[in-house]
């Protein structure tokens, strides 16, 4: 639990005017980490950088929460041929809208982090895969990249060192699946966004068959902080198992929706009631989807003492995800919400694997039937059966992402579902 959140000073999105300008960023300590690493390369060897990031335990902010430094260490030894870093800025999950804030207000922090990551992994080119709908932010990011090139932070022999790296932006054409790391690579290669079968993993065989690491934008933005201040400092934010500053995207029925930066491990209720100004219209809280639409929804009575970190959320049967918290008030029709989420996954399933392609549609159609008052009790068992048949049976996790909200909503809000189904039975009688 983080107690002194009120005195917390944001580090990812500090309140500095025009921080997106490279001069302002530099004036406020920007690119210091990169300069340190490159100038003092004896101390800051690539392996040391990776070790420091690993020690800091930066958990991936894209949803899976894997230790970023550990992921970097999976890259094989350099063999003189190209290697890549792909930065995942394709945030397309309902409830998730944090990366855009970085692109808008602090793009250089992310760029600096990406360059340091490239240095640590001997990468030749960095690709920023950015959601196509983020057109203004693409422009902002590209402007920042151009500035970094002008100042010599990107390109050949960066700041007089032996290290060279190029950085490119790549706009997605608008498919949720392209945020999945292997589909992202397919899309980057100019193909249809289909997940790849693993193994081989991207570090073994990634973009164009070469070793590749895929990191979320926010994850990389944490890297300069770790280099500047050390792993121990970084771990002083929030719980040991899930440390560091987090961008909480709070939306739904709250008075002040938005992206807020606080340490990991913040109390859920504090975030809702104090940070986001409480539930809209003074209503009671009914449910929370803690980390984007794919994470299992929680009932309000389950939130007592729960904090926003992977351990605490796992204990109550949910996940941290992207920390995109969707708050739902007492008037919310859960069947309607879950139907809407299912509609999204049905629409976005890439259609490659049978259980996902057919299961997502079946879920949506059955939920629609219940929502419209035509449900029967057996439909609830059927929904759970469909979820069973989808989970863990596909190449990527989209099927799980589609099944979990349905499964856990039925488990946690069964009364509501049953009520809708019963209504039909009476009407028919």
């Amino acid at each position, binding site marked *: 639990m983080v107690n002194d959140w009120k005195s917390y000073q944001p580090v990812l999105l500090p309140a500095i005017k025009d921080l997106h300008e490279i001069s302002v960023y530099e004036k406020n300590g920007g690119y210091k980490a990169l300069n340190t690493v490159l100038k003092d390369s004896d101390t800051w060897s690539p392996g040391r950088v990776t070790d420091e990031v690993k020690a800091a335990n930066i958990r991936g902010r894209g949803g899976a929460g894997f230790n970023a430094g550990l992921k970097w260490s999976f890259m094989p030894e350099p063999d003189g041929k190209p290697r890549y870093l792909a930065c995942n800025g394709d945030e397309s999950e309902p409830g998730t809208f944090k990366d855009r804030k970085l692109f808008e207000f602090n793009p250089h922090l992310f760029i600096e982090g990406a360059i340091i990551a490239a240095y640590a992994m001997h990468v030749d080119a960095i690709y920023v895969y950015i959601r196509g709908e983020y057109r203004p932010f693409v422009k902002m990011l590209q402007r920042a990249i151009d500035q970094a090139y002008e100042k010599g932070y990107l390109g050949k022999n960066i700041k007089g060192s032996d290290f060279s790296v190029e950085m490119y932006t790549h706009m997605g054409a608008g498919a949720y699946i392209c945020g999945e790391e292997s589909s992202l690579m397919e899309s980057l290669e100019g193909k249809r966004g*289909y997940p790849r079968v693993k193994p081989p993993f991207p570090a073994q065989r990634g973009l164009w068959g070469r070793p590749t690491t895929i990191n979320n934008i926010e994850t990389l933005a944490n890297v300069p902080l770790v280099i500047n201040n050390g792993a121990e400092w970084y771990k002083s934010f929030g719980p040991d198992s899930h440390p560091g500053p987090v961008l909480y995207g709070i939306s739904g029925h709250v008075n002040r929706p938005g992206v807020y930066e606080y340490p990991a491990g913040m109390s859920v209720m504090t975030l809702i009631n104090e940070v986001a100004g409480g539930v809209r219209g003074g209503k009671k809280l009914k449910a929370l989807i803690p980390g984007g639409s794919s994470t299992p929804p929680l009932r309000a009575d389950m939130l007592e003492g729960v904090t926003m970190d992977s351990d605490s959320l796992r204990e109550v049967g949910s996940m941290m995800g992207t920390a995109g918290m969707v708050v739902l008030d007492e008037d919310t029709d859960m069947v309607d919400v879950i139907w809407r989420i299912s509609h999204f996954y049905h629409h976005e399933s890439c259609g490659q*694997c049978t259980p996902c392609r057919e299961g997502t549609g079946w879920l949506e159609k059955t939920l629609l039937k219940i929502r419209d008052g035509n449900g029967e009790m057996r439909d609830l068992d059927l929904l759970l059966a469909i979820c069973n048949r989808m989970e*863990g049976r596909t190449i990527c996790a989209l099927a799980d992402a589609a099944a979990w909200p349905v499964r856990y909503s039925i488990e946690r809000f069964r009364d509501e579902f049953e009520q809708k189904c019963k209504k039909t039975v009476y009407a028919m009688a």
Partner: protein
Amino acid sequence: MPEIFIDNIRYEYEKPGKVLQFMLDNGMDLPFFCYHPSLSVPANCRQCIVKAGMPIFDKDKGTFETDEDGNRKIRFFPKLMTACSLDMADGMVIHSHVTDDLVKQAQADNLEFILINHPLDCPICDQAGECPLQILTYKYGPEGSRFEHKKVHKPKAIQLGPRVILDAERCINCTRCVRFTDEISKSRQLTIISRGDKNYPMTADGETFDDPYSLNTVDICPVGALTSADFRFKARVWEMNQTPGIDMTNGKGCNTYLWTRDNLVLRITPRFNEAVNDHWMPDYARLDYKKYNENRVSRPHLKLDDRDQVKTSWNNAELTFGEELDKVKGSDILVIGSAHASVEDNFAFRSFFEQKGAESFVFLPHVEPGFGDDLLISDDHAPNSNGVRALGFQEEDEKSLAKRIESTKPKIIAILEDDLLGRTGLPGQLFGESYTIIWASNHSETTRSANLVIPVTCAAEHAASYVNVDGRIQRTVPAKETLYTNRRLNLEMSMARLDHYGTKFDNWVSDDNRVDCIPAWEFFSRIPSSQQAERWKTSREIMEAISTRIPVFEGVSYDRMDDENGIQLEIKKITEANTV
């Protein structure tokens, strides 16, 4: 040697590979749709799922952990695995549907998913009878579906290209067709459009699927989504006989199946032969089936007093042939062999005229430089150029042949199965002063100008062998009856259900489709003994003679060709024979 345990039985394996292929190679059955041995592994149908695990190794002790009974403890992977993409590993344990109810249930579950949006119109669908989805649903599927919503309707009967029609509703998104155009034919003309349960294969806007190998996608489509524009709704597979054959349109000699019903060849599909054509064949070779049915020479034809040809009896044709031969010396006969005819026919043809004292044995190869590609089409349009060369026929071109005829003025020109005039542009009057005899299966410009036309069986009607451009000898099996053969009496011919159980009075049987012709070699065996012909009873017998007399063919026999799916000859020797 590394070992793997599948359904509690131990197997050893030499080469690393995928579990599914290993199971198939060892005769085990596992359902799958997207997997194809010659294409990449997308693991997207999720049908071939198995439970897999590895023994737990105790690093400290250096041994495997065991239970009370001394059996190795197995740590199973948390999820069910797709066997098509799962690499075999030493000590791996696999439980398929045979021993694991969870796997069995998962396979049924997956089939329930596949069938929810797939139209269940098997009685109408063109794929019925050879549809893996239909077959595997019976074997592994659930008893019914709980899906009670409206199915997704996708476009029907879209003409993707000149030869392929798509019924998008039936597509189960296995992506075999897309991968075929990406990886094999490399035209990249197909892709999947749209998403989720709405997606299906399609060409780019304004593009047509005119890949020269497009019909292979119809073969590998595991449902009736892609159909051949030519064969669509023509016949049901269970009414047809499926007979192994060889492609007659190209020197590559793709292995084929001829599909016949009521003595008509209705389609040609590729037959797997790793050494020649893998699973594939070009489109134009498939559409060649028509020549087996249409425009056939039936009964001998004779030109009387330089007027029109008339049909005549076999007896008369044989007598006329004998009389014409008696009129001339052997050196007055020009013998033109054929790269379009079999080794056996060319051999019998040559040996007959050799005994008559003929000295000129030539043939005209049918090569079009630049026609071929890197895959299965060679420049050679004939199936047996190497075979004729190996038999010692001298290679000529149009000019040298014309010059030879003009200078030597042969009294008889004997032509075997080759439309010399039609395909080369040689003038008809070239043969004017000679008595022309042709053994032909189809009418052509050459048959129309000939003095005597002997109808012979086509590749679909006889057992014979052909040597492809790479020097591989392969044989055909009769697929069609002639007037003188009978499916029930000929042991080489396959029989469909209707052949077994049908009667003469069934209305699908018609005698009209039996051509009045005989194999060319048989004609020479029929000529009276005064002509000193060598006599053969079967083409098998001829091949035995060839293999003992001609070194290149040493050790070749029908049995070996059957067992080994064709025999690679020493191509060098063939070239030598050619230079003699």
